[in-house]
């Protein structure tokens, strides 16, 4: 680096070497910011996570959800397009016969291993029924065991944007 960097390699001035002066100057800057932040809380750049969440682009790929039909049953027809497209091999579907011959096929179980997921969105793109979406905006995944990241059909069906985190 060509520019002069204070205190690193360069020679410090006598004032700097006296230490206390610079300390108080630094404290002054900090206190100035504290007061300004207290007076203008709205302008604070800090996001009060986890109480507050930053608004992400609507295109952001968050935790998946499964869409429902009007009667509340999954829209998914267990075609396995998503699990075939998934590069992380983390979607596990077991298909079953649907009582309605017009629907014919439905997922008996639908599980995603969120820890293996790379949030690429290929599942969403592959789905011919728009049954799986990643538009929940949920990005903060935390749990105290690995098993809790293995989410099932019930979880995914109720994993709405305003649902429980």
């Amino acid at each position: 680096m060509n520019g002069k960097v204070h205190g690193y390699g360069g020679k410090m001035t006598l004032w700097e070497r006296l230490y206390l002066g610079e300390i108080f100057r630094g404290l002054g800057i900090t206190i100035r910011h504290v007061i300004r932040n207290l007076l203008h809380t709205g302008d604070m750049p800090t996001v009060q996570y986890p109480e507050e969440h930053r608004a992400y682009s609507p295109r952001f790929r968050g935790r998946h959800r499964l869409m429902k039909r009007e009667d509340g049953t999954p829209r998914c027809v267990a075609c396995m397009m998503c699990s075939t497209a998934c590069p992380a091999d983390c979607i596990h579907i077991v298909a079953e016969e649907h009582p309605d011959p017009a629907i014919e096929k439905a997922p008996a179980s639908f599980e995603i291993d969120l820890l293996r997921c790379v949030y690429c969105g290929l599942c969403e793109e592959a789905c011919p029924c728009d049954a799986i979406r990643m538009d929940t905006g949920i990005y903060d995944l935390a749990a105290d065991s690995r098993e809790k990241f293995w989410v099932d059909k019930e979880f995914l069906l109720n994993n709405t944007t305003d649902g429980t985190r």
Partner: protein
Amino acid sequence: MVKVTIDGTELEFAAGTSLFDACRTARGEALPHFCYHPDLSVAGVCRLCQVEVEGMPKLTIACNTTVREGMVVHTRSEKVRRAAQQILEMHLINHPVDCPICDQAGECGLQDQYMTYGLYESEVGKSDKVHKAKVQVIGPRVVLDKERCVLCSRCVRFCDEVTRTGELGIFNRGDRAEIGVAPGRQLDNAYSLNTVDICPVGALTSLDFRFKKRVWLLRSTPSLCHGCATGCSVRVDHEAGTVYRLKPRRNPAVNGAWMCDEGRDTYRELHADTRLREPLLRRDGALRPATWPEAWATLAAAAGPAAPLGFAVVSPRQSLEEIALFAHLAAVLGAPAAGVSGGAREADRGEGDDLLRSADRAPNRAALAWLGLDEPAGADLAARVRAARGAVLVYGADPAADAPGWREAVAGRTVIHLGTHRNATAESADIVIPLGAWAEKDGLLVNRQGRVQASRRAIARPGLAQEDWRFLADWLAAAGATEFPASLPDLRRWVAGRVPALAGVDLNALPPEGLVPGAVAAGAGGER
């Protein structure tokens, strides 16, 4: 021989060859088609296989034309391509195109053909389609979707010409024409699932396989059906160590393009709960899991140089190599050996017919005779076992289930069971050794024609189960034998050398359809 020019190449064919087959040879791939099937009569209803024959006013269907001297045929002209495209579009007029939920997707004639001959900009509106019944269970094994049917009539011809049961027919006309079962009947013949195989679309699906797996995830291994003495050529479709279905592999010398429904169920035994996964040793009256070193130590004590083996029996379900090696092991251990049918002996005699199914349900009985092993009848077997002193070794069979007098004959003696399942013999044995089931190993079978065919390993063995020939070879080595194989090809050479019928046959390079040793020398292909 007649000379025909196909796409500019002059080729010779035997008189009477179908132009469809000639085009397949010339092009290296089949013409687009739904209704043609090499093992059925010609229907000529799908109109997809049209080609241009010079001198003919219109396009003609190749499947219903025989080659003629001097014919000049074009299969790749724009006119032919347009025709296929239009015909395909017609087939799709009322087709639901519900590929995502259709079990045929991935191996569908309509999908495959559309990749090459699709119009892509469809001229037919979705809303005008004629809808028909879906998910009709038309028999114990087959589900019909009338909408998806392209009315190729293959299934109808199969039931009329092959099984001659005639359950299926085409009813109504025009866009209401549909496949159906004759009133009051069911598609319940012993070969019904072949209709599912030959249905080019997802109109006929298998109740058993339905929705279990998408077909593009499956891997196929060429194998043999172990269900009866016919030994149909099959392919084992499996994924991640699980077998999902058996499909016939075309072998004109044995099974044509077919196999029976019962044979298709045989994959289930591979994943039964009763599979042996580890060696079991009897301790304090009960069979308990043991390690291999423990099992070997117990084996050596029960049937080794110190304690000669009394009697050895082997099932005709084991492969040629295994039976040969087992008989050799018995000789080294000083015991007489005999064949004994596996499972309940009665189950080895099933219903047969003049199509494929043999009443003899053991796939390799002919090999016993080749290797000079006889098969004493139940009471006779017990008498011979009783006459011999020492431990009794059972390989693959289940004589305790029903061989008369067996339990009394082995009472108080050490019984060693080499097998795959916890059957009655395993339950009453003292040493149980887990080995591979048929889809878990390579092996040769000799069918009722005397044809030697190869079955290939498709999946891994469960748990600690060992490969049969390796276990037998290890035991031979431990027993101090001087002659034991180091590899499977080695073993096959050794077997060929011991069986007079196999003189001059290279068992390591069998053709896909297998071979009948005598017929090779005589120059005959061996008809069925």
